C-alpha cells in the first residue's frame, strides 16, 4: 500500500476511534497526523526518540502506532474507555515509543532537551524530535527550554511546531499575539525552517535533513485537516462527533 493510502486509512481510523469513543480533540489530532505519520514511517530510526509535547493529540500518536502495527484494533477500541492504557493524554511507562506521559503543555521540549543531553553525555547516536502545538508556546517553561537548548548546543534536536493557529478559546493571534513565532524563535538564535505540514514530500525532506545544531520546524497546518466542515474551526479543538457528522467527515476525507 502506498504511504498516501496508509495515511488516508489512518485518518479514517482516527475519526472512527474518536467517534466510537465519543471524544473530541479531533481538530488538533488531524492537524498533526501527517507530521506524526511521516516522522514515524519515514524518518525515525532505531536510535531516534520522539516526545509528543501536545499530549492532547495522543489519538494521532495511537493511530500512527496502529498504522505501524504496534497497536491493534482491539487496543484502539479502548481509547478513552476503562480500564485502558489509551487515555486521553499519553500514559506513562507502558510503551517504549512513549518515553514520557504528557498532557500539561510546556513540558515536552524540556524533556526532549533532557534526552538530547543524555545522548551528548553518553556519546550516543540518534536524534531527538519534539512536537509542540503553537498555542503551547504561551507556556514560559518552553522559553526556558529554548534558552537551555541553545546554550548547551543540544543537537541533533528538532522542535516541530504544529502551527494550526487555533487554540482552546480563540486563535493564537487573538489570544496572545502569537502569530510571529518565527521572529521570536530566531531572536533566541535557533535555526528556523518552515514547511507545509500537510505536504508529505516536503515534510519528509525537511525532517530527514541532517542537522548539527538545534532547529525548529514551523509546520503550517490546518486544524481539522481533511474534514471540510472542521477545517480551521476552533470548536473542533473540543467537540466529539455525532453520527451524521461522522458519516459526513468520512465523505469529506474522500474529496479529491
Amino acid at each position, binding site marked *: 500500500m502506498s504511504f498516501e493510502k496508509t495515511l488516508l486509512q489512518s485518518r479514517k481510523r482516527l475519526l472512527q476511534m474518536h467517534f466510537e469513543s465519543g471524544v473530541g480533540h479531533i481538530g488538533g489530532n488531524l492537524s498533526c497526523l501527517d507530521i506524526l505519520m511521516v516522522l514515524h514511517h519515514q524518518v525515525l530510526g532505531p536510535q531516534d526518540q520522539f516526545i509528543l509535547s501536545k499530549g492532547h493529540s495522543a489519538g494521532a500518536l495511537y493511530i500512527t502506532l496502529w498504522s505501524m502495527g504496534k497497536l491493534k484494533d482491539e487496543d484502539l477500541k479502548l481509547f478513552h474507555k476503562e480500564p485502558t492504557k489509551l487515555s486521553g493524554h499519553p500514559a506513562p511507562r507502558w510503551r517504549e515509543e512513549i518515553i514520557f506521559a504528557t498532557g500539561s503543555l*510546556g*513540558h515536552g521540549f524540556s*524533556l526532549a532537551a533532557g534526552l*538530547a*543531553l543524555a545522548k551528548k*553525555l553518553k556519546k550516543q547516536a540518534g536524534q531527538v524530535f519534539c512536537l509542540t502545538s503553537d498555542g503551547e508556546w504561551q507556556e514560559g*517553561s518552553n522559553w526556558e527550554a529554548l*534558552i*537551555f537548548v541553545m546554550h548547551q548546543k543540544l543537537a541533533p534536536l528538532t522542535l516541530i511546531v504544529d502551527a494550526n493557529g487555533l487554540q482552546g478559546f480563540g486563535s493564537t493571534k487573538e489570544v496572545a499575539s502569537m502569530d510571529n513565532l518565527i521572529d521570536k524563535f530566531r531572536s533566541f538564535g535557533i535555526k528556523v525552517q518552515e514547511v507545509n505540514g500537510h505536504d508529505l514530500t516536503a515534510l519528509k525532506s525537511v525532517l530527514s535533513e541532517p542537522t548539527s545544531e538545534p532547529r525548529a520546524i514551523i509546520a503550517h497546518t490546518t486544524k481539522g485537516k481533511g474534514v471540510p466542515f472542521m477545517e480551521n474551526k476552533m470548536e473542533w479543538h473540543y467537540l466529539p462527533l455525532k453520527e451524521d457528522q461522522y458519516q459526513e467527515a468520512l465523505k469529506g476525507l474522500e474529496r479529491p
Partner: protein
Amino acid sequence: MRNAFCETLVHYSKDPNFVFLTGDLGFMALEPLQKAAGDRFINAGISEQNMISVAAGLASQGLFPWAYSIAPFIYARPLEQVRNDVCLHDLPVKLVGNGGGYAYGVMGGSHHAIDDYGILLSLLNMSVFVPAFSADVAPIIEKLLKFPHPAYLRLGRDEKPKGMTLPAYAPWRKLLDGQGPVMIIVGPLAGGILSGLQSEAGSTRPSVWVVSELPILAKGLPEEFSRDLERTGHLIVVEEHVAHGGAGEMLSRVLLMSGKAPRKFDHYCAKGYLSGYYGSQNFHRKESGLTVELILKDLKK
C-alpha cells in the same frame, strides 16, 4: 551541611551516570564539585521548570541526576514538573534543597521552606531525607545513590552540640534517654533541643528520637520507640515545617491506624509569620514556639 554534601558528591562525581544540575546556585560552596564533575556539572540557569524536566529526561536514559537549588526553588517553582515528569514516571531524580525550614532567616518568606516535605510527600513515589547533622549527609547520599525512586534531600545548618557523640546514621535514632514523654524531632532543630534537655533530670526528661526519613510508615517504627511511647503515653513532635503534611500528622495517622495512639500529643511546628516581621532563623523558630525553653516550660506546667 552544604560542604558535607559537596565533598561527598565530589567523591562520587566520576561515576559514569553522575550528572549534577544547579539552578545557578552554589557560589562559594559547590566549586569543588564543579571542578571534579567537569561536563557533568551543568548550571541550568535560573529556570527551575526546565531543569527538572531535563533531569527527568536524563534519568529516563539511565543517568542519575541531582538537581540543586535553594529549597523553595526546587520544589515549589517546578512542582508540576516534579509531579508529572519525575514522580509519575518514578524516575530516580534527586532534588536537593538548601535551607530547609526558616534557614534563610531574614532573607524572607520566598526563601523559606516550611511546607516542602508536606507538599512533596503528597506526590506519588516521593521520599524525603532530612539530615539532622552534617555527619548524616554522607550516609544519606550513599543511600540515595542506590535509591531508584524520586527523592528530596533537605539540607540545613548543622547545630550539633559540642562534644556530642552521634550514633551511626539511621532513619530513626534515639539520641537521649529519659523517663518523660517521647519526643520526635525532624531536622537540625534537634541540635539545640538536645543541648537544652541534657541538663534536665532523667525522671522528667523526654526520650528524644531524631527521624531523618519520611514518610513515616508503620513498618519503619522502631520497637523501642513503640515501647517508650506505650510506657509514657505522651508524644511530642517537633519540626520546622507547618502542621499540615508534617511529621506530626504522619506519625499520628500511623499510630491511630495501628491502635497505638498516645493519650497526649503535642506538636511544635512552623506557624508561618505570626507577627508579620522577619528575622533570623531563630527569630522565626521562637515565634513559632520551636525552642527548647518553651517546650520545657510546657512540660513543667
